[in-house]
């Protein structure tokens, strides 16, 4: 076990950021602690200051704000599950949350922690990336917003500079007919994803796809979007998407994946499954939008 640390308790976002700025890399935020506790005990992470975000108010809201879906960094996976009914996209995120952890760890684990931990197999990254989510970041020099795909820079690496924290995830343009679906294969329900894929579809009033997102998890150091699959889907009807286009999108997923072989699965298996899971995700979006979800 690593050395003991000093416990800091900010009660505003500004204070949290000040503490992080003044201690730099020697300080780590502590949200639900479901990754932190294990990493600290195993000596994988070592820090002198623990900045507990539990007592910072207003970071745990999940709400629709105009045509934006806003999810606070400290909202828990359990909150996502309980808020499923808010919107078709929270429905998909709630379903994702229920695949993750166990009930009694979902009540601790936060959305911000899942993203900031930046594991290639984190389950929330693909659906949020497919939806075109943005990360709102607060630092000593103020606020900035970046696409979630740019938030991840490598295995366990994010674009957060010293002194910065993630405050919120914003999914823009969620009005109208939208649907999303996330699919993964894992050895057991408490195991991490071996490979995963998410799809997002938005229709215009004539029933054509105007926006599409396809994102893969656990096949590269960060979540990757399959731009060619997205381009294929745009302009299609739901029927076309389901018949043939989903299949081609799956082939693009295979071409985009850069999977590795490890103790859990082979590169070949992971690569093949990206196509299967992408087709399933697109098929599910189509079914939801046709009213058969």
């Amino acid at each position, binding site marked *: 076990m690593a050395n*003991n*640390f*000093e*416990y800091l*308790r900010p009660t505003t976002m500004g204070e949290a950021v000040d503490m992080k700025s003044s201690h730099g890399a020697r300080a780590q935020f*502590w949200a*639900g*602690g*479901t990754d932190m*506790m*294990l990493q*600290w*005990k195993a000596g994988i992470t070592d820090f002198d200051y*623990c900045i*507990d975000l*539990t007592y910072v108010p207003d970071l745990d809201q999940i709400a629709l704000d105009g045509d934006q879906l806003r999810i606070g960094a400290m909202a828990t996976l*359990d909150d996502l599950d309980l808020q499923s009914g808010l919107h078709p996209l929270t429905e998909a995120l709630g379903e994702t949350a229920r695949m993750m*952890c*166990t*009930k*009694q*760890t979902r*009540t*601790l684990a936060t959305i911000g922690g899942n993203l900031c931990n930046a594991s290639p197999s984190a389950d929330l990254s693909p659906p949020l990336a497919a939806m075109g989510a943005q990360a709102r970041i607060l630092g000593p020099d103020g606020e900035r917003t970046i696409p979630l795909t740019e938030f991840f820079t490598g295995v366990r690496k994010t674009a957060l500079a010293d002194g910065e924290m993630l405050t919120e995830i914003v999914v823009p343009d969620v009005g109208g007919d939208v649907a999303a679906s996330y699919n993964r294969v894992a050895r057991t*329900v*408490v195991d991490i994803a071996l490979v995963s894929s998410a799809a997002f579809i938005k229709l215009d009033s004539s029933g054509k796809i105007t926006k599409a997102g396809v994102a893969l998890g656990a096949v590269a150091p960060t979540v990757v979007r399959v731009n060619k699959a997205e381009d294929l889907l745009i302009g299609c009807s739901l029927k076309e998407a389901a018949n043939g286009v989903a299949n081609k999108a799956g082939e693009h997923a295979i071409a985009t994946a850069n999977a590795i072989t490890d103790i859990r699965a082979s590169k070949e298996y992971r690569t093949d499954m990206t196509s299967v899971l992408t087709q399933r995700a697109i098929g599910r979006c189509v079914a939801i939008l046709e009213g058969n979800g």
Partner: protein
Amino acid sequence: MYKLNVNGTSYEIDITASESLSDVLRDRLGLLGVKVSCGEGECGSCTVLVDGKPETSCLKLGRQAEGQEITTIEGMGTYDDLHPIQEAYIEEQGFQCGFCTPGFIMATKAFLDSNPNPTEEEASEAMSGNICRCGAHPYIVKSVLKAAEKIRG
């Protein structure tokens, strides 16, 4: 000193920065019904209720629980006056060695508070965050359904 509310009593205790809530409950307050098995959030043995929600107390810092309402198995019933969930586990033989039982009972309490009339499938799903090494799961699901019946009256 940190203020903790546990089973309806307020305590002022010294808690070190890295001390887990499960360690605080066991070592400082002597609440040995809080069992720690895997210590990694997977087995559910250390489940307690925090503001009515089930949480694995091994992954939470003791200091993070300040101001929250904590319930452990010791706050559920007594030998002479068992909680209906405890009665149901005894009647349906929802355990063998009993080590995992406090965690299961706390998870059951949280579940039935939110879903008083569950199906067998819902009960089984709700108990999936706890592991019984003796393999009493089918009896545990029966215990949950029996407890629901008792509480509904």
